[in-house]
């Protein structure tokens, strides 16, 4: 029998980015909140300090900060007629575990999705006609607009201290920023990071081709900053150990550096780590959640009753938790009905390498997770898709994050993949090569989805999440077109050799691409195509809020977390100003 704890006003499932943000808003509103985190507590000091933190083998190769696949993983297949197998070593994407979640080891590339992204189906139909969208493409609108989210984007960026340059303040275009961005209310809290040499060459080449380069908005800070929570961040040192690492310098915006000290010192908050949530409990009416069941660090089953349940376990885990708890109708790809697990999407990335001769020193080790320069000329619908016959786009940028010795070995095609000739080539090219990123959108299609695996179970005996995914034809076309554009820019950068190929199928689960898994608990205004309403409230069980990139109906060109931060504040605001006043559904259909 499960031990029953005293009822909380709200329980957080996961204390990563979303958990910390929403937890802070709810405790501030006076709620007693219990945060349940499966992993260990971890802090900048002592956990992320050098020289241990710069152990590439431990953190990049052995993935010390990631979800432990020996306990809990995902199964994968390319199509519904295959049998899925468990992913025993994480590679393509790297969800974190432990206090602070994936934000601990993220890069900090911080964007706002565009208004056309939030209204993708409507916008595409308006601009290109109703036959433009292929039948199996299930893209849809989000139910919110960029203008509605602006104050929440702003708040998130000021929480993080994001370093960037505005391109559009209240409709006034600002030179040097992103000219394609929707109006923002004010400048970024801190100026852009310094521009590395490779990025400067990209800027020059992109400008010469008529594009509009701008500095990448970064959560590796360009100067000291104190956020509205009173948390002080320091300046990034360009150490080159960002993605997959904790930041030793208090210079990367994470839950640890921006929120946790304030949250943890709030008497309304109680953190419990080592707590694996296994189920959201629902009463007989199936309309009200009564709390959650979790397994404590010593293996004991514990019931935590709560009036409000906040699911912030990272996109993939959010979907799984709803399926395990039987909240919402699971998606069935055969009939196209059901919603939980529907519209799983990813990110369509490729890259171009520019090889210089030995007179050009790139110093790739002198980088940060989110420095660099890019163009948004091919993001979303910023260019005419009519003749191209695909949906979506990508940013192209010189946004290298590191030159770490185990992971970065640029060699031109034709180099043997091992032996002394390989070593010689690495030595020759290491410091004279730069890489362009093509970071593209991902359309949702009927065939790609998430459900529970019929065979494989986790360490607690619960079915794993099964992923069925391959790159849609639309995205393969997009990648081909935009990788060509990047090759042109690479050539204009004056490299001796410019090499790159677009993303092609089949999707390779053993190669890192991004941890930008989206969809499965889609938000919207129609319960037949969404799991949560536009306030991220479950249609079926209104005291459950599900918050994560799992809310995205499809994925846009930019990295997802800036938009997720805005949505988390948007949902928290709805809870505090609307839901708490009169608990119940916030939208009626």
């Amino acid at each position, binding site marked *: 029998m499960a031990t029953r704890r005293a009822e909380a006003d709200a329980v957080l499932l996961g204390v990563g980015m979303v958990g910390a943000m929403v937890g802070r808003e709810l405790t501030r509103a006076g709620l007693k909140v219990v945060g349940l985190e499966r992993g260990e507590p971890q802090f900048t*000091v002592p956990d992320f300090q050098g020289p241990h933190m710069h152990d590439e083998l431990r953190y990049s190769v052995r993935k010390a900060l990631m979800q432990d696949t020996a306990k809990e993983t995902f199964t994968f297949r390319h199509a519904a007629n295959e049998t899925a197998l468990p992913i025993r070593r994480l590679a393509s994407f790297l969800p974190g575990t432990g206090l602070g979640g994936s934000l601990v080891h993220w890069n900090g590339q911080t964007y706002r999705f565009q208004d056309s992204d939030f209204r993708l189906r409507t916008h595409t139909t308006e601009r290109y006609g109703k036959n433009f969208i292929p039948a199996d493409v299930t893209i849809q609108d989000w139910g919110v607009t960029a203008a509605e989210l602006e104050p929440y984007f702003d708040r998130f960026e000021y929480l993080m201290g994001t370093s960037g340059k505005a391109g559009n303040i209240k409709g006034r275009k600002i030179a040097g920023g992103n000219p394609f961005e929707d109006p923002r209310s004010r400048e970024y809290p801190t100026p852009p990071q310094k521009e590395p040499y490779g990025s400067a060459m990209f800027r020059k080449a992109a400008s010469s081709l008529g594009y509009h380069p701008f500095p990448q908005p970064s959560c590796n800070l360009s100067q000291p900053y104190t956020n509205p929570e009173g948390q002080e961040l*320091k300046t990034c040192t360009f150490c080159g150990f960002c993605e997959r690492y904790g930041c*030793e310098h208090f210079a990367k915006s994470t839950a640890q550096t921006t929120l946790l000290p304030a949250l943890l010192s709030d008497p309304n908050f109680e953190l419990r780590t080592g707590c694996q949530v296994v189920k959201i409990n629902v009463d007989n009416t199936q309309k009200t959640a009564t709390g959650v069941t979790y397994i404590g660090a010593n293996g004991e089953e514990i019931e935590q009753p709560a009036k409000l349940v906040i699911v912030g376990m990272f996109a993939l885990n959010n979907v799984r938790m709803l399926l395990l708890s039987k909240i919402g109708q699971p998606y069935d790809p055969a009939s196209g009905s059901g919603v939980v697990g529907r519209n799983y999407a990813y990110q369509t990335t490729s890259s171009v390498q520019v090889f210089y001769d030995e007179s050009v020193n790139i110093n790739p080790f002198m980088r940060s997770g989110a420095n660099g320069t890019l163009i948004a000329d091919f993001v979303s619908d910023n260019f005419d898709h009519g003749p191209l016959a695909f949906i979506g786009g990508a940013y192209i940028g010189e946004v290298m*994050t590191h030159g770490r010795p185990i992971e970065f070995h640029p060699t031109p095609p034709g180099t043997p993949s091992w032996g002394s000739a390989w070593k010689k080539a690495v030595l020759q090219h290491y410091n004279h090569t730069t890489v362009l990123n093509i970071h593209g959108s991902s359309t949702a299609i009927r065939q790609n989805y998430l459900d529970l695996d019929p065979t494989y179970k986790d360490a607690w005996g619960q079915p794993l999440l099964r992923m069925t995914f391959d790159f849609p034809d639309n995205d393969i076309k997009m990648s081909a077109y935009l*990788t060509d554009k990047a090759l042109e820019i690479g050539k204009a950068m004056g490299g001796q050799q410019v090499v790159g190929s677009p993303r092609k199928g089949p999707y390779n689960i053993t190669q890192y*691409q991004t941890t930008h898994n989206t969809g499965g608990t889609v938000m919207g205004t129609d319960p037949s195509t969404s799991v949560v309403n536009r306030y991220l409230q479950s249609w079926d069980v209104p005291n459950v809020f599900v918050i994560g990139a799992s809310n995205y109906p499809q994925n846009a060109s930019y990295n997802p977390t800036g938009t997720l931060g805005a949505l988390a504040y948007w949902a928290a605001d709805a809870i505090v100003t609307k839901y708490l006043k009169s608990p119940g559904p916030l939208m009626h259909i």
Partner: protein
Amino acid sequence: MRTALVVIAIGIGTLPRPAHAQGQPAQPQAPAAAQQCVACHGARGEGNPANGFPRIAGQSQYYIAKQLESYAAGSRQNPIMAPIAKGLSPEERDAAAAYYAAQDAAPPKSGAPAPQAQASDRGRILATTGDNNRRVPACINCHGPGGIGEPPVYPYLAGLDAAYMTAALNAWRNGTRRNDGGQQMATIANALTPDDIAAVAQHYASLTPPKPIPVTLAQKSGPATKPAPGNVPSSSHAADPRPDKSVGVGQGAATTGGTQGPGGSGESKTDRSGNAR
């Protein structure tokens, strides 16, 4: 960073080293530009702590030259150093800096207080671990294990006398020194209490300074030189309070992430694209 620098800096050791005769270091000849330094910092840069002049032997040429430039420009204020630095041309500063960077002066005399007696736990903890509540990262992140520095940018701290270290931290604190681009030192020094400053200064004074690592900025390839072993206290690892994460969930498999595109180690035969995060 250190690894990367060493990779790039392969081929050093071209700077003149002082001659040694029968175990007795010969008196080196300071170049003309360094003549003025000798009186206070010593012919070998050993310093004169009793009179408030720090050791500079074996700090990198880049670091010493940058300090001279800052004294001249006023971003590091000091009534003694400012006129001297202003009187030197950039070339003379470089020459003086190169000379002292190559000096292998004897460690400070053990007439100084016995290290263990003086150095407190607080100083060692700040140096090696930091303080989360005060948002102070460990000094070793930049200044190297054992305070041996990360040349050329980050100076060594090991063996610098406590009075100089205290004065330097106070200069960061009160803004008379503002010559680091990111204001790291200002924010850190401001977060320390006077007791913390004293403790960390004592800690570094108790350590042995490193041998010079003759890194110059313009490196040409040539034979590799091993950095001289510094003073890395082995106990700093034994006392590590962190949980052991050395196994990790990848369980030793080769990295498969194509994090920087083809040529990043994640490249596979079927798919040479892939980058991004």
